[in-house]
């Protein structure tokens, strides 16, 4: 297993070609199979944790916690998309850290520009287009960080990672109506924050 390289281009992780077999082996106690799954999805899990927590170290901690939880509970996995199952665990681990952090004095989210690697665009057809897309992604992530925490969590879980209202409500332990309201207000606030990025809204 190679060391992760933060500067390495990272895309949305799709399922492994032989994922059902690998998951079955991991559920049967095959540590190598489990490690393969975690290595494959570490970018997805870390990305979610990073967007929820806004701090690279806390995000890595949350991802690590999620891996351990997944290892302990993989036998309770009941099919469906393994990525979604793992992301739900990561969201819970991140939210646990977020709740613990809320009990301590408030700290500002670190500046996105400080030490964060650029994100390569998986859909870019040319270097110029990739550059534009990368800037858009950076702007989106920067805007997400400016949202109030409750709106950011709801928008990230729903719009970035595709959870439905019910899943988000379970994760953040709030009523579905509250979740919907946070998502809608978060989107509207994002649109305001990104008003100076007209290229984003071009067809």
């Amino acid at each position, binding site marked *: *297993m190679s*060391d*992760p*390289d*933060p500067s*390495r281009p*990272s*895309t*949305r*992780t799709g399922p492994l070609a032989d994922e059902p077999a690998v998951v079955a082996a991991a559920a049967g106690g095959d*540590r190598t199979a*489990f*490690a393969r799954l*975690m*290595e494959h999805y*570490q*970018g*997805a899990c*870390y*990305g979610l944790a*990073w*967007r929820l927590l806004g701090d*690279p*170290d806390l*995000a*890595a*901690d*949350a*991802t*690590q*916690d999620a*891996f*351990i939880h997944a*290892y302990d509970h993989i036998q309770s996995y009941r099919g469906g998309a393994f990525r979604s199952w793992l992301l739900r665990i990561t969201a819970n681990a991140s939210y646990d850290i977020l709740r613990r952090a809320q009990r301590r004095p408030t700290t500002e989210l670190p500046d996105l520009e400080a030490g964060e*690697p650029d*994100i*390569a*665009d998986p*859909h870019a057809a040319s270097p110029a287009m990739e550059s534009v897309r990368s800037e*858009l*992604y950076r702007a*989106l*992530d920067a805007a997400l960080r400016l949202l109030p925490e409750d709106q950011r969590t709801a*928008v990230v879980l729903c*719009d*970035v990672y*595709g959870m439905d209202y019910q899943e988000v409500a379970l994760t953040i332990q709030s009523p579905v109506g509250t979740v*919907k*309201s946070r*998502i*809608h*207000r978060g*989107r*509207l606030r*994002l*649109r305001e924050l*990104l008003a100076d990025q007209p290229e*984003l*809204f071009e*067809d």
Partner: protein
Amino acid sequence: MTMSSPAHPDPERLSALAEADAEALGDRGLTDHVAGCASCAVQVRDLTILRSALAELPDRMPPRRLQYVPPVPQPASRGWRVAVGRAFAPVVVAGMVLLLVGGVGATGVLGSDGLALFDRQASSEGAPAAAPEYTTTDNSSPPSVDLGGAVASPAARASDTETMGSAAGGEKSPGATDQGELGAGDRTLWLALAALGLGLLVLAFVLRRVSASGSSPTGRPAG
């Protein structure tokens, strides 16, 4: 339908429409308004694009190497600890028995009288009925007790001599064995047994302590 102003619907309703929420799509007043209102239509379009862009945000690689699976205990180092744990109780019991038997024997309870008792019993079974008690220390007359060889012979003989001597009125016969030499030999044997028992006890406790202090935690890695 909640309205933020008499002219336009609540922006949150527009957001719901942007994600094609079934309930919003079924709101005829909302859809009709958006269809006829350029401002609201742009808002819905922007929110739709925004959702698409958010859904495309790529994954990110962690800044440090993560541990994919929790560590497992080393089987080799664990095996002997398990063996020590299992053998502890039997070894302690054996050590205590040896210590007890050796200690009692060395203090003379079994070393003289006890074995003499065995010897006397055996002798009474093997001797002629007409001879109620021995009057001599002739080793050839009564059959000696077979106590398993190593322990039986010298101890039994020494005890026998002593008992028979007292039975004869306390006089030492001319053929009597030297009690002092054999008694010392017996005591050494008992003491050796006691020492062996004590050694087993010490060894068991030392090994247990070493195995307990050497065991490594197998918990989850630090986050």
